[in-house]
């Protein structure tokens, strides 16, 4: 089928047989929830659709549904995600399997509807696992995988699958939509857990906890997030066996063999980075690319392993933590601290500003000089910034 990233997400939710959908419209997420409404109303999907009055309520409804054993889905973006933030913490703290699509979009003011990863990355400490697919196909595959990961008893954490506004959400590509039978084999219906609310086995969920116990609740969330790494890899392998597609688990290694320099990035401009890598390789540069597919849990060891014999890395990202730096580069640098590899951090494509493969080639060439001169800029470089006098 020819699908946009958003429609691919709707098909994925349908194939996953979600039974409660609670959503509130926000550009550029609307196609997803419109398509799902269509699926339900023409009888293709047996689910309840709660047309909530806010994103805060959307996540609350997902929590209420997951708490009694349903498989919920929602999707949002930008302001909606930030408005939902309190409930993101709640969903993870309550250890409920929920999957949400996030169409990444810049935050206001000033108003912008274009892609920017600061929305979802600002929520990285909530306990949610966060995936960044690169294409409509991967959006579909990742959402189906996400239910399997989230519902694993060693994980039981909610998952956000985040893709770029317009570059992925509204770009149409050929997507292989798997058969329902195969998805059913891969993803059985949701289990009942010890903490699923049940009138025959009553208990109170989320009561007040004194300092003697609270810390342990937090530790176990971290523990589950870390153990999810193994599950993420296994699920990706199992998915490959059934559907013939794999994304490498937590990171995708693109032409990393014998590489001297690596790009590290995530999201929609990964395709352009791959193009730049191909062209640079043709010119004789030994360049590769690590695509971060999953930023929570952070794939520290996966990156480290690839980075061992590297002369330098260039991290390019569409987000920023004011007063500090790029979020991806800050996190990567901390993971690679012991390796002492020169890293140059680029901020690019903020608020949907277009960046193409030519730009990544330019970025590489100027970084290549820095690496050779051993003159590594300490501060992040805002690529293409207009100087306003």
């Amino acid at each position, binding site marked *: 089928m020819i699908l946009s990233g958003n429609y691919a997400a709707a098909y994925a939710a349908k194939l996953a047989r979600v*039974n*409660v959908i609670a959503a509130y419209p926000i550009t550029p997420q609307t196609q997803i929830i419109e398509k799902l409404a269509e699926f339900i109303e023409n009888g293709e999907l047996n689910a309840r659709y709660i047309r*909530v009055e806010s994103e805060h309520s959307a996540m609350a409804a997902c929590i*209420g549904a997951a708490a009694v054993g*349903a498989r919920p889905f929602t999707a949002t973006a930008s302001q909606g995600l930030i408005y939902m933030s*309190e409930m993101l913490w*709640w969903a993870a703290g309550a250890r409920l399997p929920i999957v949400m699509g996030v169409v990444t979009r810049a935050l206001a003011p000033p108003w912008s509807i274009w892609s920017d990863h600061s929305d979802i990355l600002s929520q990285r400490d909530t306990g949610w696992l966060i995936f960044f697919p690169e294409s409509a196909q991967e959006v579909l595959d990742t959402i189906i995988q996400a239910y399997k990961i989230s519902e694993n008893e060693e994980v039981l954490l909610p998952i956000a699958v985040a893709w770029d506004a317009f570059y992925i959400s509204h770009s149409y590509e050929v997507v292989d939509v798997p058969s329902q039978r195969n998805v059913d084999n891969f993803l059985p219906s949701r289990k009942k857990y010890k903490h699923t609310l049940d009138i025959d086995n009553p208990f*109170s969920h*989320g*009561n007040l906890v004194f300092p003697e116990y609270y810390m342990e609740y937090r530790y176990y969330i971290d523990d589950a997030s870390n153990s999810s790494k193994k599950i993420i890899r296994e699920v990706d392998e199992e998915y490959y066996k059934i559907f013939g597609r794999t994304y490498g688990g937590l990171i995708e290694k693109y032409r990393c063999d014998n590489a001297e320099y690596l790009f590290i990035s995530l999201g929609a401009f990964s395709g352009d980075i791959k193009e730049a890598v191909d062209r640079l390789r043709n010119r004789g540069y030994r360049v590769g690319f690590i695509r971060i597919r999953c930023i929570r849990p952070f794939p520290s060891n996966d990156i480290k392993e690839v980075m061992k014999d590297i002369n330098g890395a260039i991290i390019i990202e569409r987000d920023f933590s004011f007063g500090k730096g790029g979020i991806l580069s800050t996190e990567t640098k901390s993971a690679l601290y012991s390796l002492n590899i020169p890293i140059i951090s680029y901020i690019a494509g903020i608020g949907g500003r277009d960046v193409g493969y030519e730009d990544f080639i330019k970025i590489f060439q100027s970084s290549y000089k820095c690496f050779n001169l051993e003159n590594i800029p300490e501060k992040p470089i805002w690529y293409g910034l207009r100087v306003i006098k």
Partner: protein
Amino acid sequence: MVWIKGDKMSNLVKLLGRDEYLLSGNPSCPGCGLALGLRYALKALGKNTIMIVPASCTSIVLGPVPTSSVKIPVLNIAFAAAAATASGMSEALDILGKKNINVLVWAGDGGTVDIGLQGLSGAAERNNNFIYICYDNEAYMNTGIQRSGSTPKGAWTTTTPRGKKRSKKNIPFIMIEHRIPYVATASIAFPQDFILKLKRAREVKGLRYIHLHTPCPPGWKYPSDKTIEVARLAVLTGAWVLFEMHRGIFKLTGPSIRLIEKKYRKNIEEYLKIQGRFKGISKKMIEDISKDIDENWRYLKEKFLDNNRK
């Protein structure tokens, strides 16, 4: 609505049965109005109930981990999120084929009339299938008696040290305007009235809203053995009106039936003077409060009784 005359204990026991769902020894304050209300509510709804509780005094009354004060499943939830959580839960139970489970939201006045109002309004407009009880102790008691949208005019709170200047929000009327199938008010001083309303609400499908008046000894500054007396005076002075709106038919209930005529209402000062939160309020303020009560009754009469929508 059948009104059984007199709140005799034997009648109550017959109505309620002997099963208890709120355990004794729970950490509510002495004379706590909400604890009484919760006990009645759970007895009326019974075992097949899942309760959703947003931040409120009840978050404490439920007991600290690893204990629980209630014998039904409970989901604690964020302050603003109760009605939406209940929407998700009731839809989920329905599609999972688990029928005959009451989804009950048990929320305080802050979680209902202030921070929770948007979610409640959304759920009401959608007519999601659950029972929402707002237990109204007329301020943010759990955080230390700060004023809420439900604090009455003239009342002292820690954030209105000279008394609140504005009146209480009339949320039950706002709920009626959402055209949900069932709206009622109740008071813990009239448990039969409350329980019969709940039993009636239980049989209705859609969003059912009950606003329960629950005095609070530390917040309202009266001795803890006066809770029922204070609650009763609120009704008998006409400051709190007992009614029911079921399928578009409005009825006053219990003692409120005859209080439509002003002469049967007790003097409001009887209600105000036994509460420390109204201590030292001016003559002018008492007049204002009294006028507000009259105005409320006039509005109610014109809107619902003179042209009863049958």
